[in-house]
């Protein structure tokens, strides 16, 4: 293994993903080839529906791909079973979500300690770690509050502390500043940058927040499920809908349904969905 390969922490090859709503295909990723190196503060940028979250979910093992490979820390996460993925995430990946997603019935401290306990640490040890990380994200004094007693920014800091508490090698953050005001958002970006530099944790963030993009050590732009611009990646040529969403990948009953759905009705359904999403 070369030195260049050793530093590669995430690698995807020809990653395809298509969502189906009834008989209508919604292509999400068109053959993504991406390499993220250890210690990067990489940002996936692009408009809504460009495939940022889908890519992040596949890398995090929360979703499967239709085709291609996604190696994280040298292991193909797509070939793992659900239980294996859970274990892998617990050890190696921390998540920060747009909507914070804390467990409502647990206090801030317990939310952070929960993942440590899942890792096998004792309750006492887990609570100590939780206190440490809450101090680290500057809300140590709010540890006993429940999520609904915290502001959005404070909840996101708890989420960051939870993501870091297991000392993962990678943190995947999906629109972490989207629900925060600009000042709180900037504070969060500074915090993540500081942690990236001091702990050398790799950050892969999906965002269309200009402040986040500005802070990136590497910016990867996605459009319609393809990388269109990256400081390292070569933009890929556009691909056809049939190439990303081949009907043969669908179950037999779905294919049959597709065959018998009148095209006019399908177009009508599509228009309705488009108008709902716009």
């Amino acid at each position, binding site marked *: 293994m070369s030195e260049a390969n050793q530093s590669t922490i995430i690698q995807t090859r020809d990653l395809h993903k298509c969502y189906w709503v009834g008989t209508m295909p919604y292509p999400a990723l068109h053959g993504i080839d991406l390499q993220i190196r250890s210690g990067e503060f990489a940002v996936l940028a692009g408009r809504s529906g460009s495939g940022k979250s889908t890519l992040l979910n596949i890398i995090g093992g*929360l979703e499967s791909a239709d085709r291609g490979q996604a190696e994280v820390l040298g292991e193909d996460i797509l070939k793992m079973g659900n239980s294996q993925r859970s274990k892998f*995430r*617990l050890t190696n990946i921390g998540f920060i*979500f747009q909507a914070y*997603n804390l467990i*409502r019935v647990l206090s801030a401290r317990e939310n952070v300690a929960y993942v440590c*306990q*899942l890792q096998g640490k004792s309750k006492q040890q887990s609570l100590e770690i939780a206190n440490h990380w809450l101090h680290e994200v500057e809300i140590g004094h709010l540890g006993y509050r429940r999520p609904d007693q915290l502001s959005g920014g404070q909840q996101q800091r708890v989420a960051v502390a939870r993501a870091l508490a297991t000392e993962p090698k990678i943190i995947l953050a999906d629109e972490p500043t989207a629900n925060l005001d600009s000042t709180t958002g900037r504070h969060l970006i500074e915090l993540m940058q500081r942690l990236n530099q001091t702990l050398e944790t790799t950050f892969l963030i999906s965002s269309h927040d200009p402040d986040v993009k500005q802070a990136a050590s590497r910016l990867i732009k996605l459009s319609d499920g393809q990388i269109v611009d990256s400081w390292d990646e070569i933009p890929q040529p556009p691909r056809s809908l049939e190439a990303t969403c081949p009907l043969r990948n669908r179950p037999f009953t779905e294919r049959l349904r597709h065959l018998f759905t009148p095209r006019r009705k399908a177009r009508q359904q599509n228009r309705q969905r488009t108008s709902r999403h716009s």
Partner: protein
Amino acid sequence: MVSRLGILTYVALAVRNLVRNRRRTIITLLTMMFGIATLTLLSALNDGWLSQMKTNFILSFTGHLQIHAKGFESSQNLRDNIADPEAISRFMDTYPEIIGWTQRIRTSGLASVSGSSSGVQIMATDPEQETWVTSMDQSVTSGVWLRPGMNKDLLLGKTVAQNLGAGLSDRVILMTQRPSGEMVSEVFYLRGIIETGAPQIDRTLALISLDGAQQWLQMEQAVTDIVIRADHHDQTDTLYRLFVQQLSEQVYEIMPWQELDPMVRQWLEFSDAYGLIILFVVILLVLTEILNTMLISLHERQKELGVMIAIGTQPHRIFLMLLFEAVLLIFVGAVLGYLSASLIVMLLAEGGIDLTGYANAFEFFYMDPVIHPQLTRDSAIKILLATLVAALLSGLYPAWKATRLSVSQALRIQ
């Protein structure tokens, strides 16, 4: 890596999740309580009157076990008698389970009082020994119990006395067949009226002393029944096995109380089956309610569960957590329901539920018109087990469904 999320963490999570939606939890608990309380009350009523029925049946007439000469129960003929009852009586002191026994002669006959007649079941017994076996002596509502040595004393069931128009001290002529087949009649004097609470006994009973009957019927020491009372209903089977081992089945027939009246046995079996049906229906209702609550809860918490899986919780732990939540909900509801029903049973046990208005409908089944509900260990175990099964069944499906959750879809829920 072994998770340290112990049982207490699951308890805490389950409790907090239940407390989070107080109104729904309270409504579900009330439903549970009502269901289990209803079940417990019905069970207590059933057990109460079944127990009364057993006791009435055993103490009013039959005892726990009867030994006859082979074929007597079907022939009811005095020729099928036990000629040497002492051979059996010697066993009585050796078994501590026996608290009383008596010898009887039983035959059918006719009673006449100044022109009116009625068919009767003539029963001759030892006045003292009988009091150790049945409560007939306490059922004398007017007059006195059989007096030792007074061979002309007669006691009649209340209804038969009314039918004959017989009063205390009246001459009553009893007529029956000797073992030889010879018809004989004898004058007796009515000394007491018996009301056992079992109308079929009160309608036919003519009670005389054993010594007098043996002389009258020329049976010497022979008897037709040896009636045994055990210390407790549950010891009947033990005694039955002991006597079966000791006595030749070619000569004797040994019958536990259940066999002496097939109707009573069938009624008891029917009541057990009926109790099980009620148990099944109530548990099914409870199960549906909890299943509904758990599915709604699962629907509301999809995102949270998705997050838990995303941050590394193994699906089987989610399964356990939800299952635990259902079990906890049912357990608390069941305990509250059982306790409230126990309280009601305690309050009703003393005075009982008066069904005098319906007594005629039940008279055939040795029921008292006042039912005293009672909670038995067997019923409590049955209810507890059924509740546990319901809890597991109602928790399994939502818990399994949670493990099949699409994490990415759950995370997209707003």
